[in-house]
């Protein structure tokens, strides 16, 4: 039964191997190059237009025609909005994730369904959150305001935060829970003192990731947060946001204002970079802690 399987096709196989290896490595390079190109272009175009007055002043009269002023309104508005939304999302997210990991059995139907609905919510486009937020706002008798924006963005952040939290809290070993129960702790005490403490860096990372997503999202606040040149002083006033400020400035026909859009984009990118670096640092510290 000996076959004459000479290695004559070996050369062809080697060529195929190397061809695809190059193609694959090339694909990775493309992905990385895209990131570099995006961040690079934004910084390169935005940095020259960035000035102190841009981040310390609100828009003065005729700002969108190229006159004096800055985007402090949008910076402050975005920070308020994203912070408020993140806070609200934590208030829902943390109890839910703790519940499905501590109270419900890890494989119970309720836990499975909750995870599934988080997955589904994660897939809902932000423009749909925007539309829903708008309906909710009208239903509650609100006008476009900081509060309406916060509620909408909180909904958007909820699945992002919960999934990230669930991922770390799931890793808490069940033995640890049992050890806590055997010392007479209630489930609530176990959840707060053992589980939360054990996975705190991971929870903070989840919160940061959600914050980053919240501060960058435009489609959801378009309908709900409004836009104003003034700094918001109450929850019921409209608030400007950074992504929308970028969008509106870019939409003007004046090159000076467009340059400000680039500068604002650079600023937003810097904030996102900072937040993800922070999140990354926490993860690093956390894993180091584990080993």
């Amino acid at each position: 039964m000996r076959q004459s399987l000479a290695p004559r096709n070996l050369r062809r196989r080697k060529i195929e191997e190397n061809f695809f290896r190059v193609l694959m490595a090339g694909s990775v390079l493309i992905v990385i190059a895209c990131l570099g190109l995006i961040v690079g272009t934004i910084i390169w175009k935005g940095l020259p237009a960035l000035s102190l007055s841009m981040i310390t002043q609100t828009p003065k009269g005729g700002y969108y025609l190229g006159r004096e002023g800055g985007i402090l309104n949008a910076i402050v508005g975005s920070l308020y909005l994203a912070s408020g939304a993140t806070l609200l999302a934590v208030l829902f997210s943390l109890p839910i994730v703790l519940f499905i990991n501590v109270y419900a059995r890890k494989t119970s139907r309720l836990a499975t369904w909750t995870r599934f609905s988080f997955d589904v919510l994660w897939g809902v486009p932000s423009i749909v959150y925007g539309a829903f937020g708008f309906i909710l706002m009208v239903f509650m008798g609100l006008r476009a305001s900081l509060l309406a924006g916060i509620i909408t963005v909180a909904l958007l952040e909820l699945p992002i935060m919960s999934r990230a939290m669930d991922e770390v809290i799931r890793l808490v070993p069940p033995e640890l829970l049992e050890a806590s129960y055997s010392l007479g702790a209630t489930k609530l005490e176990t959840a707060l003192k053992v589980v939360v403490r054990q996975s705190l860096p991971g929870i903070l990372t989840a919160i940061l990731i959600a914050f980053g997503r919240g501060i960058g999202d435009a489609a959801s606040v378009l309908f709900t947060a409004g836009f104003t040149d003034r700094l918001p002083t109450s929850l019921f006033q409209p608030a400007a946001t950074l992504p929308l400020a970028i969008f509106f400035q870019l939409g003007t026909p004046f090159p000076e204002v467009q340059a400000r859009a680039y500068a604002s984009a650079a600023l937003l990118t810097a904030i996102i970079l900072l937040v993800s670096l922070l999140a990354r640092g926490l993860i690093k510290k956390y894993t180091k802690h584990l080993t």
Partner: protein
Amino acid sequence: MRLLKDALASKVMLVLTFFPGLVVFLIIIGLYLRGRPILAEKPLFSLLFSSSWAPGRGDFGFFPFIMGTLWVTAVALIVAVPISLLASIYLSEYAPRAVQEFIRPMIDLLAGLPSVIYGVWGVLLIVPLVARIAPFFGGTSSGYSILAGGLVLAIMIFPTIIYVSLEVISSIPYELREASLSLGATKWETVKHVVLKKGLQGIIAAIVLGLSRALGETMAVLMVVGNIPKVPQSVFDGGYPLPALIANNYGEMMSVPLYDSALMLAAGVLLVIVLVFNVLARIILVRVERRAG
């Protein structure tokens, strides 16, 4: 007292846990209720397949926008699927651990960039590029086009497809690869005949998730796609995807009768499509996971 607190907390948490499921239903119901007035005037079928868009005269034909969405998404998938899959195979099968650890945070970052940033970048780089290359394909283009939208969108869905397919591929046992390698197969042959075949369902799910992400993406596409309410004839034409339509007209929608209803219906249609794809992909992934475990 402690026990009372515990029992109370347990009840509160249980109620909260129903919240995410409730939100999904509330969104669907809310959009449906707001979309009902227009459905009372016109059947859904004629709304979806009519090309006439003139809100002032009461004409709300979604067809050009649906086609715009499909075109942009198709371009994005054609570009993103091969690149993402090849990249994830490289990362899981070939790359040394150091390279993997170097690249993962970068993909995280790509996923975390806001869509307006993608939009600004598209305007700065992709739009002029498309305008420049259009003549070589025998057309002219302002650059604000389906192609520009598709390219920007492709980059935005890289992370989704890469992450999910990485997860799927890495759940395939190493011993299975060893079985193929020990027969004298090269690495690529092992990938082609064994890894991809074993992971096929999960990879399809990854692509579907990327697809549903692309269908709903709004701002970035809106900024580069041209927003022309006509059925596009080529990738160099401008288009007007559904999400862009909703986002662009929020200002005037309260002043024209039925306009807001039409937009909310559009959002509802978009949501249903995206949800169907999403649920499908998730079900596949759950099944894959169960089989692996």
